[in-house]
């Protein structure tokens, strides 16, 4: 057996790959669904917190800042493990999917809130004043004048952060969520061959490469208009 044959047999073993491909595909769709959910709930929750913060109610803002700083400081894996093994003692036992979804959403929410908030405060005061001086209310000004400008500023950092956090779906493997990585590593244990890991890596590329390219496209598109 030549060196290349040995390498191919170990890492690109077609027989092993064919056998575990269905499992990887299952993991792929689970990861896609989970990532999509995390993006929607995380960004929506972050936006809601940023809007609440713009009201300027001091005790509320302290609470928001505390929550946001907490979830920005904790490693996502710690949040997942804490919720998964901690909540049952509070009489509530979420499954692995819900736990990963909630954990990553909380982390994305925290970062998205900071990004939206930075965008809102970057809109000059004069924009608020011009709008309010024509009789628009606080919320009308926020939604028609301030947010459209703020969101344009937030698109590039938000895209980056969203990609980084959705890749954290792989952390679900720690609590037995059968997403891509988990399927690949259990296939590896069963077959005594790391080829499924290569399949898993390929699945991640298929999933995230388009997202990264899309992110780059959105960034340049919004960077140009200003």
């Amino acid at each position, binding site marked *: 057996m030549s060196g290349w044959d040995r390498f191919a047999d170990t890492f690109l073993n077609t027989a092993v790959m064919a056998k575990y491909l269905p499992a990887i595909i299952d993991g792929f769709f689970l990861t896609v669904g989970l990532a999509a959910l995390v993006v929607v709930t995380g960004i929506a929750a972050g936006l809601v917190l940023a809007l609440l913060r713009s009201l300027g109610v001091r005790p509320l803002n302290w609470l928001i800042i505390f929550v946001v700083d907490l979830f920005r400081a904790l490693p996502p894996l710690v949040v997942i493990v804490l919720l998964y093994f901690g909540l049952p003692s509070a009489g509530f036992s979420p499954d692995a999917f819900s736990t990963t979804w909630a954990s990553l959403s909380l982390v994305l929410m925290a970062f998205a809130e900071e990004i939206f908030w930075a965008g809102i405060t970057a809109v*000059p005061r*004069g*924009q608020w*004043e*011009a*709008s*309010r*001086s*024509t*009789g*628009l*209310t606080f919320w*009308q000004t926020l939604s*028609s*004048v301030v947010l*459209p*400008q703020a969101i*344009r500023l937030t698109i590039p950092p938000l895209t980056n952060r969203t990609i980084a956090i959705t890749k954290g779906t792989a952390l679900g493997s720690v609590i037995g969520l059968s997403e891509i990585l988990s399927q690949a590593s259990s296939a590896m244990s069963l077959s005594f061959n790391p080829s499924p890991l290569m399949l898993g890596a390929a699945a991640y590329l298929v999933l995230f490469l388009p997202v990264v390219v899309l992110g780059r496209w959105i960034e340049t598109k919004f960077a140009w208009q200003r």
Partner: protein
Amino acid sequence: MIAPIVEAHAVHKYFGTHHVLKGIDLAVAERELVFVIGPSGSGKSTLLRCLNRLEEPSSGSIMVDGIDLLDRRTDINHARQRIGMVFQSFNLYPHMTALGNVTLALRKVAGKRRAEADAIAQAALARVGLADRAGHYPNQLSGGQQQRVAIARAIALEPRVMLFDEPTSALDPELVGGVLAVMRELRESGMTMVVVSHEMGFARAAADRVLFMDAGLVVEQGPPEQIFAAPREERTRAFIGQIQRH
């Protein structure tokens, strides 16, 4: 005599411990153009911003067109439709066209339908000489054009009084004339105006009355001839002398 459109009485304003307005009385009659001059930090912009409650006075009373601006029960957003304001830095909405800038409040505040709002906005833009710029974004317009769009945005709501906060200070000299021409046309149409500005030529030609403010007080007021040519107060004389030197 008819009641004045703007009537401010004993207006005080503190920023923290800093006493910016120290008891201002100001009455502006219908169709009157009042000019407010004074050194920077004299409180003239703060006074103007109190007149539509962008700044909340610490005490005093302000009536505009019969509405008590400082009454808690007053719907300030409703009142503000009657008080147009133009800012030094234009403050156009960069993500909207000139037309969009003018129609926003027409639709959201005055409740006009899109077609009607567009027609009103087109007329307002035509009035400031920018009918052909309706589809342009602010960054495609010169400073003078932006300021005229800002004026159109305010007059489209048919205000009873217009407040101008240094409307030409941020403009290159060659663009000032266009903005002043629009303001002159507004004045001739009978608009009541309060103008904070140092455009002395315009004040001489168009103002009914000039107020000189210093250190939070109205030091002297009178017709432009008096304030510019024969001021009675020493501080007014010193200030006029300074600005006329260049």
